[in-house]
């Protein structure tokens, strides 16, 4: 008999906490709409979704995959940037937009392959391996762009397809949001419903047990890091199409938010597992908090304090929830 069995489980408490984050999101929306009249308008909400949330959501989906496999991908931003660089370079070289997009994703896959080689091949911890990739990616961008200069698609020759990717809408919904929906649905199916997702879960929580059950631990990890980088590079293509340029190191802006969102999402799950719906809620919460703070006139420099407090709150909920669940 262990100590755990001595405490009678308080069944109601974890459930209450589980709804803490959706509740917090609702509270944030109500509070800001009272304080800032412009907050709860359709144009502001669509603006937040397209400008703050969509790209962060795509990078966070990528991050969720690696968190589910028991690691992290600190080089998601590198995959964003290299995807963007390859995409823009191909367009400037006169390639059709779809070929440029394929090249952009291939650049992402290349980044992921490198991570996979380090993590699955050489058994380096994901944290260190992807940190190394982050540094190398930084240098690579400096070397190929004269020390880190933006690369612009000449204004006169912007292909219509590029403008469509950057600003287009299908059935009135911006293309970026369609992409988020498609990627989120695919990643959710993969993690929560597929056989592969179960293998990821086992590798992510108990790699030894996965090995002793005959699972291909290394291939699972390799696939996850390649998929993560490939998804992140799609965000890079979207960014470039939006500003008609490659802007160096812009991908790293999404790194911290994506880690935050993935872990907020984990804290939502009763079983403390990385999950796509939770991650999306985390992205929404972080996005609306920073937008709301901006609207009520908080100094831009203070906004990250808001995000920080939010993550502390989520961790606190997760921590108390875990103790109760024990």
């Amino acid at each position, binding site marked *: *008999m*262990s*100590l755990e*069995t*001595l405490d*009678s489980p308080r069944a109601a408490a974890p459930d209450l906490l589980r709804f803490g984050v959706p509740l917090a999101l609702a509270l944030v929306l109500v509070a800001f709409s009272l304080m800032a009249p412009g907050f709860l308008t359709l144009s502001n909400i669509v603006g937040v979704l397209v400008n703050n949330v969509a790209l962060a959501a795509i990078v966070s989906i990528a991050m969720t995959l690696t968190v589910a496999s028991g690691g992290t991908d600190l080089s998601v931003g590198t995959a964003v940037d290299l995807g963007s660089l390859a995409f823009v370079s191909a367009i400037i070289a006169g390639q059709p937009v779809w070929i440029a997009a394929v090249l952009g994703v291939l650049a992402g896959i290349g980044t992921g392959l490198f991570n996979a080689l380090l993590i699955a091949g050489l058994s380096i911890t994901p944290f260190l391996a992807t940190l190394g990739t982050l540094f190398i990616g930084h240098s690579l961008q400096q070397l190929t762009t004269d020390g880190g200069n933006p690369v612009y698609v000449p204004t006169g020759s912007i292909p219509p397809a590029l403008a469509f990717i950057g600003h287009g809408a299908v059935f009135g919904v911006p293309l970026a949001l369609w992409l988020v929906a498609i990627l989120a649905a695919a990643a959710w*199916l993969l993690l929560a*419903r*597929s*056989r*592969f*997702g*179960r*293998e990821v*879960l*086992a590798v992510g*929580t*108990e790699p*030894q*047990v*996965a*090995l*002793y*059950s*005959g*699972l*291909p631990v290394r291939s699972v990890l390799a696939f996850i890091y390649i998929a993560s980088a490939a998804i992140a590079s799609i965000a890079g293509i979207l960014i470039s199409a939006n500003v008609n340029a490659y802007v160096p190191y812009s991908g790293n802006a999404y790194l911290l938010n994506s880690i935050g969102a993935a872990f907020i999402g984990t804290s939502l799950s009763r*079983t*403390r597992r990385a999950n796509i719906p939770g991650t999306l809620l985390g992205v929404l919460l972080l996005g609306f908090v920073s937008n709301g703070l901006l609207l009520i006139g908080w100094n831009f420099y203070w906004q990250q304090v808001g995000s920080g407090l939010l993550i502390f709150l989520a961790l606190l909920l997760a921590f108390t929830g875990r103790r109760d669940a024990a």
Partner: protein
Amino acid sequence: MTILAPTLAMRGLVKTFGPTRALDGASLTVAPGTVHGLVGQNGAGKSTLIKILAGLVTPDAGDIEVGGTPLGPLSPRGAEELGIAFIHQDRLLVPTATVGEALFLGQERSGSRHGLWRGRLERRAAGLLERFFGIALPKGALIQDLTTAQQQIVQITRALLADPKIIVFDEPTASLSRREVDHLFEVIGQLKAHGLTSIYISHYLAEIERICDAVTVMRNGRDVAHVDPRTTGTAEITRLMVDRDVKDLFPRHNATAGAPVLSVSGLAAPPAFRDVSFTLHRGEVLGLTGLLGSGAKDLVRSLFGLSPARTGRIEVDGRPVRLGSPGAAVRRGIAMVPEDRRAQGVALALAVDENTTLASLPAFSRFGFIDRARERLRVSRLIDELKIKTSGPEAAVRTLSGGNQQKVVIAKWLARQSRIYVLDEPTVGVDVAAKAEIYRLIARLAEQGAAILLLSADLDELLGVSDRILVMYRGEIVSEHIPSETTGARLLAASVSGARAEGIAHVA
């Protein structure tokens, strides 16, 4: 340093947790300067009794006397002040600490801020280990570099620094090799010579018989018998614990060995083992034993593709196979029940159903997606079949007892329809009743035509369950025994000295 420890008496203890009555008027009296055994199945109330002594649990009724003075409910602090120390089976040392840090960390009594003076700290630690146990650990070693036995010695030394009068050992040998157990017993003997009292809790009755002066047997929350282990045999103690006869513990299976399923010839992975040849048949339980370093462990690992053998030939169903990874072994129908159940056998954070289907996901998937309905149905059936005690297929395996966790591991391979079972110490750390159930499962597997290779250091278990027993010594199979024609002493002699001549039954 001879300390006269006080007499400890706990009387009429009652403790209920919700609907469960963990203690129902239990008493424990321990004479000073003795080694007192405390035995009972899981759930008999041993742990609760000890937790009351540690001040972790407050009893509903009953009293505690130390040295004739009645005490109120104990607190952890109070237990420490009385000089009661606890050595737990789970190592409570920080893995990345040095030996010195592990010994002195959090011990304000030494007064100096030696944390800053690592060299001095380590020298003091080395001095103490030398003085108490006459051993020298590698210089600058971290806790994680030490063997389990060495870690345990560090833990005991740490407890001794607080000048205890009574030391409680809670399943201290669960993860120790036989040699390490011998060493621990020497240490306990030394403590006794110094006048300390020890309370010794173990599932291994042979150990109790070896070192205890008196034994309290617990069953259903009460102390049901007080026996002298020198006059009462382990069979009788077992009967008192489970209230049924020990011969029921080892059910014989009715299968007759059929066609060869796994044959190994000239297998070698120097320096661990060499020239290993044997054949395992359908419906057969083949025992395997050997001391630490005999290569038996490495042989078992290589058969599951964990550390592949260099040379030799492995045939499954007469076809030569390469077992280069666990995945390859699993595809050939080989199942592994690893010794370290909690790190390798079950994923504690995952649910019973998720654990059960982990090795056979393709069978539960359609177009790459998991068929939850089929999964749930199969797992529910296995839970019934193996009588796994769980609140349901979706309960986390963490919430199950050790024996039931082990059944989940076996269920995992049944779901895969594996035909060759490699069992590595399958009953370590589970109580007598769960052991009996695991033995019944092994017998049933054999009757259903499975071929079983059982690696165990528990000679009674090998004699009770196996059809044949192979003994390894220094990397080679030195003898083969038939249980009905051999004894534990012979097996032991073969493991210790590599004696080849005696007990050879027939060559496979």
